[in-house]
């Protein structure tokens, strides 16, 4: 097989699985789950082969998909170092999460639908990774949105999940509108949407870079990666099953927005990059604060994800796309680990998600707990763990470019350690605080194994030296570049000291402030107004709710009025009435009597005669 065929096989394996499940296996959940896991394993194998086959030159293959006049849409692969890195991560983490789901979803009634959804998600995600043009990316982008919608709404009999899936879908549409306009504009501007062709055009003539295109395409990223102001859907998306939160809303899909930016990094002028850096930094800090107001273990992790996505976009905005990719990969490892760990705890506690009703988990679920601790240390950026290397690089890049961004990102690091410390001390230590927690038990083998593998990756994932040769090229380049930047060494020592202080202060501070295994939130008890403020998350949901209910609803009522009276009443009913009237008139000529027709016939002849001889007209 050629490399392109291997990639095609990797892309189509999950689609095949999804189609088979949708057509034949909806009622046979167990079989569907094995098929889906087999497809995920297939992706892994094919990805491994493709990465091994990848030589110096990127793999390119394209076929024409649609053709209108001189406008053609092609479907093709562009498999370069960035795509290989991303593919390796998605394939491997995806497989682990599939395996975890076998245990987590074992008792679910709609297993077929769930695993079919996972497969269609993997298909769409691989499509985004491999796509060689903007239109193909957009197609798979929407498919990813659909699978996200389907999987968030898995527990469709609960109002929460139904509302959250709708919210995620609609909020993403807003960003995608900008994305779509951006694609059209890019096609008009460059005459192509092929990524490499656009890159070549920009290289040849840097004045072709347009901030409008960059800003419009950025809208897609803002929606998918849940950046400000479209971040509101991600915390709500936690209503879905936990493996979905791990796969889609932490490791892969939300990171697809960042990946997309890295793919088209050459289109971004300084001004837009600066905007992205500020945006990412503010989200990193904002989400860090929000996490303190949450009691749901998954929502805390969701805000943590938002915050880390902020770090990635800050790194991208500072001009270090490779470092953004680095953090994306390490984040995928440890955040998938944290979510799966949370899933294991939730499963063990019989679907209890409130951290203040857990407690004492360490004794009940030792493997889950220890792997979770590794994830926490990686997230906090403890030296030697994966998160340290990428976060360290981002902070150094920030410090060399802007003091304000550096200060805020460092603050974000303190916040991260603080809220993760709060979670750890409350959940894992002390006494169980509910019946569910006191009956907690360690999860089965299929759930523990992915945790252990991810825990290993959360440590070694940051050691860029041990990565396969074909992956991470752009990361090495960026790190090298950063390493030789002026003032790197001084800044690096500063970051080391500040970063280490951050996690030590964060973990110890939360230990003393929140206390071990306490019943209630110390912040809520001591400073209720502060807690309420953090819990309100700057009232974004309320503001959007007000906008939708009060302003948009009024416009909708007005439009509905126009529709009913003008279009439906005047145009549709009116024209139908006119035609009906003509019909009634001509029908009355048909008397049904033969003599009547004879008279009409005679009248016709007389008229014809009159016209022919010129008596009339």
């Amino acid at each position, binding site marked *: 097989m050629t490399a392109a065929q291997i990639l095609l096989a990797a892309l189509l394996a999950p689609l095949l699985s999804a189609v088979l499940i949708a057509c034949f296996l909806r009622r046979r959940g167990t079989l569907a789950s094995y098929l889906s896991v087999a497809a995920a394993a297939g992706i892994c194998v094919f990805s491994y082969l493709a990465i091994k086959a990848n030589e110096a030159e990127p793999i390119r293959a394209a076929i024409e998909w649609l053709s209108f006049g001189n406008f053609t849409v092609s479907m093709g692969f562009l498999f370069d170092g960035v795509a290989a890195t991303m593919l390796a991560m998605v394939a491997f983490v995806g497989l682990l999460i599939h395996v975890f789901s076998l245990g987590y979803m074992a008792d679910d009634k709609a297993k077929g639908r769930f695993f079919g959804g996972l497969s269609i998600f993997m298909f769409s995600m691989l499509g985004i990774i491999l796509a060689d043009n903007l239109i193909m990316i957009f197609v798979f982008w929407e498919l990813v949105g659909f699978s996200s919608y389907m999987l968030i709404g898995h527990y469709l009999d609960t109002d929460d999940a139904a509302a959250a899936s709708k919210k995620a879908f609609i909020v993403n549409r807003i960003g995608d509108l900008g994305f779509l306009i951006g694609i059209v504009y890019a096609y008009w501007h460059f005459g192509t949407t092929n990524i490499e062709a656009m890159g070549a055009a920009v290289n040849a003539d840097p004045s072709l870079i347009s901030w409008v295109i960059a800003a419009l395409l950025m809208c897609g990223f803002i929606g998918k990666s849940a950046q400000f102001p479209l971040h509101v859907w991600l915390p709500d998306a936690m209503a879905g099953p936990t493996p979905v939160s791990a796969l889609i809303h932490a490791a892969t899909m939300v990171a697809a927005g960042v990946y997309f930016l890295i793919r088209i990094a050459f289109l971004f002028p300084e001004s837009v990059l600066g905007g992205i850096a500020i945006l990412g930094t503010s989200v990193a800090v904002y989400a860090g604060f929000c996490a303190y107001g949450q009691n749901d273990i998954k929502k805390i992790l969701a805000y943590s994800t938002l915050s880390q996505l902020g770090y990635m976009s800050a790194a991208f905005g500072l001009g270090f796309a490779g470092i953004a990719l680095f953090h994306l990969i390490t984040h995928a490892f440890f955040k998938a680990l944290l979510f799966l760990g949370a899933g294991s705890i939730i499963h063990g506690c019989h679907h209890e998600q409130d951290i203040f009703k857990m407690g004492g988990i360490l004794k009940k679920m030792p493997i889950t707990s220890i792997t979770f601790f590794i994830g926490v240390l990686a997230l906090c950026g403890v030296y030697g763990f994966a998160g340290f290397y990428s976060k360290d690089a981002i902070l150094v890049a920030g410090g060399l470019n802007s003091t304000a961004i550096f200060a805020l990102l460092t603050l974000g690091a303190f916040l991260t350690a603080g809220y993760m410390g709060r979670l750890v001390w409350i959940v894992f230590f002390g006494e169980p605080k509910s019946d569910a927690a006191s009956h907690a038990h360690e999860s089965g083998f299929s759930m523990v194994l992915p945790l252990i593998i991810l825990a290993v990756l959360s440590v070694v994932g940051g050691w860029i030296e041990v990565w396969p040769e074909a992956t991470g090229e752009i990361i090495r380049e960026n790190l090298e570049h950063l390493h030789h930047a002026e003032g790197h060494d001084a800044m690096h020592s500063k970051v080391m000291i500040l970063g280490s202080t951050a996690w030590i202060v964060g973990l110890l501070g939360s230990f003393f402030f929140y206390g071990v295994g306490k019943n209630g939130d110390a912040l809520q008890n001591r400073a209720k107004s502060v807690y309420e403020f953090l819990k309100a998350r700057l009232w974004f949901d309320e503001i959007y709710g007000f906008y939708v209910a009060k302003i948009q609803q009024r416009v909708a009522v007005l439009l509905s009025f126009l529709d009913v009276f003008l279009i439906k009443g005047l145009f549709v009913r009116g024209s139908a009435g006119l035609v009906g009237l003509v019909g009634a008139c001509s029908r009355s000529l*048909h*008397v*049904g*009597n*033969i*003599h009547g027709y*004879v008279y009409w016939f005679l009248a016709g002849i007389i008229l014809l005669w009159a016209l022919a001889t010129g008596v009339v007209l």
Partner: protein
Amino acid sequence: MTVGLNAFLIVAGLLFAVGLLGVTLRQNTLVIYMSLELMLNAVNLAFVAFSRYNGTMDGNLFVFFIITVAAAEVALGLAIIVALFRRRQSVMVDQLNALSH
């Protein structure tokens, strides 16, 4: 004794008028049908007269065609009237109003 063209035309016109009145006034489909034939033959008569008057064969030629067509029409029309009578037991025009809305 020679009969002039006008006499033929007057007869033809009278025959045509009788036929037309029959078509418009009579109720029986069969009679209407005969009146139609009468009108056709009135025209035939006029054609023959003109042909003779002009000394050409054009009119006669037309008459042959008209007679052929009329014969075919009679075969078809009578068949329809018979079928109609079998179905509805009547050929009176005032009862054949099924096409009325």
